[in-house]
């Protein structure tokens, strides 16, 4: 240890603060002059502290979970009351559904109704966006021995995606409902009016050609229409949204911007198809309807 005289030591002690303040200004200037230096110093410190923080993360998470648990316990009473009320409501609906089901069965017996077979579908992975002739299309990977045909309807877990337009041995292209060349006949679920959903290459297709006297209501659900025998009716499409420009648009249920798996339903429709639709041999399959497709979707 250095031995210093007492006055010198006092003078040094008095000088410490001014010197350190000057050093603080120096640090400010240094940080201003070389922004990269501060960044590197921060990263070095974070590197040193990272293991410590990682070790602390577990107890902290436990503490937070405990707090959450306590809050959940406090909210239990209100939650219980809400659930009881909801249960009551659902019970009433269950009664209504059972009554309707019984009535339905009765009426079917009267009519000798032939029930719809469940539609056949395959699930394929989306491997690429875009490409091909269309602006909004996705490419699906399929196995060589697949049964995908042109004109099949693609749905994701939420709703209508598009139609198969081209089929190769290992891939198939689906034209999305948002493409500018896509025209989908739809039905407004509330008014049962027909309209055409026309792609714009934007995220929301617009709605056109609805009958006079009917105005698509904001938030009204759209389902596909069986008109022209192109699609089975009743597939969930989207909801009507009026744009700021005053045109009705469709907010699709399907998340077209993050498609990963789509299901290709074979409804065996024989409507208007693009040319060379007979390139692949058709497989005979029972007619099916969208209602069972929707039921299949709901079951999944």
């Amino acid at each position: 240890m250095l031995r210093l005289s007492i006055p010198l030591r006092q003078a040094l002690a008095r000088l410490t603060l001014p010197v350190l303040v000057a050093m603080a200004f120096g640090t400010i200037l240094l940080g201003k002059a070389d922004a990269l230096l501060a960044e590197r110093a921060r990263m070095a410190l974070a590197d040193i502290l990272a293991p410590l923080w990682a070790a602390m993360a577990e107890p902290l998470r436990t503490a937070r979970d405990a707090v959450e648990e306590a809050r959940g316990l406090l909210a239990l009473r209100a939650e219980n009351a809400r659930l009881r009320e909801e249960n009551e409501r659902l019970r009433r609906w269950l009664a209504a559904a059972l009554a309707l089901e019984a009535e339905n069965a009765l009426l079917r017996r009267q009519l000798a109704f032939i029930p719809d077979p469940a539609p056949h579908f395959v699930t394929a992975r989306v491997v690429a966006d875009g490409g091909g002739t269309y602006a909004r299309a996705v490419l699906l990977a399929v196995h060589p021995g697949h049964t995908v045909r042109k004109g099949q309807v693609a749905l994701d877990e939420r709703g209508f995606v598009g139609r198969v337009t081209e089929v190769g041995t290992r891939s198939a292209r689906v034209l999305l409902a948002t493409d500018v060349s896509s025209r989908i006949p739809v039905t407004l679920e509330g008014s049962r009016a027909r309209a055409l959903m026309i792609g714009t290459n934007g995220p929301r297709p617009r709605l056109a050609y609805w009958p006079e006297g009917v105005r698509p209501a904001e938030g009204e659900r759209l389902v596909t229409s069986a008109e022209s025998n192109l699609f089975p009716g009743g597939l969930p499409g989207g909801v009507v949204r009026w744009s700021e420009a005053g045109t009705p648009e469709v907010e699709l249920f399907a998340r077209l911007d993050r498609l990963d798996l789509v299901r290709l339903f074979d409804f065996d429709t024989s409507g208007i198809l693009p040319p060379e639709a007979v390139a692949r041999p058709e497989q005979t399959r029972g007619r099916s309807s969208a209602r069972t497709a929707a039921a299949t979707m709901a079951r999944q």
Partner: protein
Amino acid sequence: MIGGPPGAAPPRPSPQGRKEPPPGLLHRLDALGRASLPGVATAGLMVLAAAPPAGLPGAVAAVCLPAVFFWSAFHPAAMPAPVVFALGLLQDLLGLAPLGTGVLTLLLVHGAVTRWRRPIARQTFLVVWVLYCAAAGAAAALGWALQFLLTLRLPALTPAWHQFLLTIGLYPLLAWPMGWLHRTVVRVEEEAGA
């Protein structure tokens, strides 16, 4: 870094039979731990406050300023200017403010408080808190002005205001354990000195 310095342990009643502990290595370690405890504890608290899952922005500075104020006022030997400098640097590196602003703010607070520490130390807790609020307000204003000068953009007032509120709100919470620690250290030092 000294993990769990001996001063952190509750005060041991000094054994009656022995008068003078020999000034050996353990003794010196003990003194060193006691002297560095406030700084080390503050740094540890700041690192804790900066831990990602805690997720309270501005908590680092709000933890640091009370410690610097308290120790500068009541036990300046435990919070010398170089330690304040180091804490400020740590605060700047843990946060995202321009480098050096925390250092300068803390040093100025430290200087002002040590200058008037005798009148401050005589006050009641409430008055000290009010004085601390004034210091925290000045520090927040200085930090805001420095950020404005260094980035040449007007920083938003709301975060600075929230930071100030957090800083003054945390003081009583931190002053209580620090007061306990202070009393303990003083007692142990008196015992060691006696």
